[in-house]
């Protein structure tokens, strides 16, 4: 079972604001997921390489040839705020 502080830490990293009761739910759900990992851990995995991809594919590469980009109006269409033909965001400095 992971502790409440870990839940809060992960929530903060994910920019989530959790109510105390939500923290409890998350604690249980995350712990449940991690138990699956423990199940894998309990097996003898010597000599088994970590599986990062399930597809038997390598080297899917693209030629360095330009394709049309979006018209700017299209690119900016979903922006909350458009300033100077750019995406306006809260102050960052």
């Amino acid at each position: 079972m992971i502790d409440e502080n870990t839940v809060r830490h992960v929530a903060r990293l994910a920019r989530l604001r959790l109510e105390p009761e939500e923290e409890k739910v998350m604690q249980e759900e995350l712990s449940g997921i991690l138990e699956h990992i423990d199940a894998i851990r309990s097996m003898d995995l010597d000599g088994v390489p970590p599986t990062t991809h399930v597809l038997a594919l390598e080297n899917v590469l693209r030629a360095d040839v330009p394709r049309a980009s979006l018209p700017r109006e299209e690119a900016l269409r979903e922006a909350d705020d458009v300033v100077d033909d750019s995406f306006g965001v809260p102050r960052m400095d």
Partner: protein
Amino acid sequence: MSEFEPVIGVEIHVQLSTNTKMFCGCELSFGDPPNTHTCPVCLAHPGVLPVVNEEAVRRALMIGLALGCEIAPRSIFHRKNYFYPDLPKAYQVSQFDIPICGRGEFVAIREDGSELRVGITRAHLEEDAAKLTHLGGRRAGAEESVVDFNRGGTPLVEIVTEPDLRSASDAVTFLRQLRQTLLFLGVSDCSMEEGSMRADANVSIRPVGTHEFGTKTELKNMNSFRFLERGMDAEIARQEEILRDGGRVSQETVHYEPETGHITSLRSKEESHDYRYFPEPDLVPVAPDPAWVDQLRDDLPELPLSLRRRMVDDMGLSAEDALVLTESPELVAYFMEAAALADPKACANWIRGELRAQLREAGTEPWESKVTPAHVAALVDLLAIGTVSVPAAKEVLAGMIETGDEPAAVVEAKGLAQMDESDLAGVIAAIVEANPDQAQQLRDGKDKVMGFFVGQAMKQTGGRADPQAVQKLVRELVLGS
């Protein structure tokens, strides 16, 4: 001598000058209107899939091979997670535990000719963030920032060194020569000003003679080598002061302000180092065919280090000549072409000295000028056989720059051929006779006055006298020897 020794490692980000971005077909641009090179992939719209740019992989491999890195038979991409408005996916696709290029070593040469060996920890592929600009109060009352996604997704190679550097000056020597090497590879524009090459330095200090590392700070993103060197020196001094006062250096990111020379702390994102890397499921591994890697290795151009060694060992140049002449691939090609036709040392002197000095006024480089390498070689030959004196040769060179004519033609047109000794003897005799005081000074052992005679002779012959011959004749006439 300080009782502390700096320990420095650097991280260099290089934007690859490919045609398109790392994971989509948007064209790379610099200075285009904002948000004109974007697509659903680099804007991180839902459901899109990245595809790796083969040319970016090729260039990363070239960099790795040039740095003597081990090339990973199979490398994978990771997601580096953090929230920032310049990163639309809220993660940067990067590489983590299996970078495409592993350990290597770079050898730089210091100005005194000594070797500076720097271990390369890794070189990996990743994507650049977008450009974030703070608007300040430009819009009435508005305190906001704006994002231009043109740069977002530009292919980057990040090169990380071991903490092998022991001074700010060594670090900059390394960075300058690394930059040269990258320029010779043709993989990036490497412009510090425009941000296509960016360097961060990890700086710590420790008492001389100890081996444990002190706490390091990270000096961020300087846009010139000069400021980077000053910044590192300022940070080293700041850490020394802290330790001398019995304090402790805290691990943080710092910034150097060139205007004030001050170091400021950027310690704001306390949890930002928890990047929760995990394998990028949208990209399959890159496993470069060994035959491809061998081919790339064979095709690497001759790099500055090898060129410099060849210039010094085989061509008789000084370490400094070699350093200057390997500044750019164009200059090397220019010099090599001249050096194949005439004495390499003399060609080096004329190209790095007088030619560049005269061209600097016009703001051009030798290879852009009307003077061909073959003409430089011909001028060197004219000097060697005594057709022109050194001062006349400078004038000939000026004519060559102006007209693009070969030196013999300029000599002819300007009447700059050296006087033969019997004609010169008459001129010298007249000068000596007209200046008895100076002649007496020479007899009294004031050798400096020889400059006066040489100057007079040059003036009266329009630069056609050989200074060596003038000195010899004056000596014979005045001193009888």
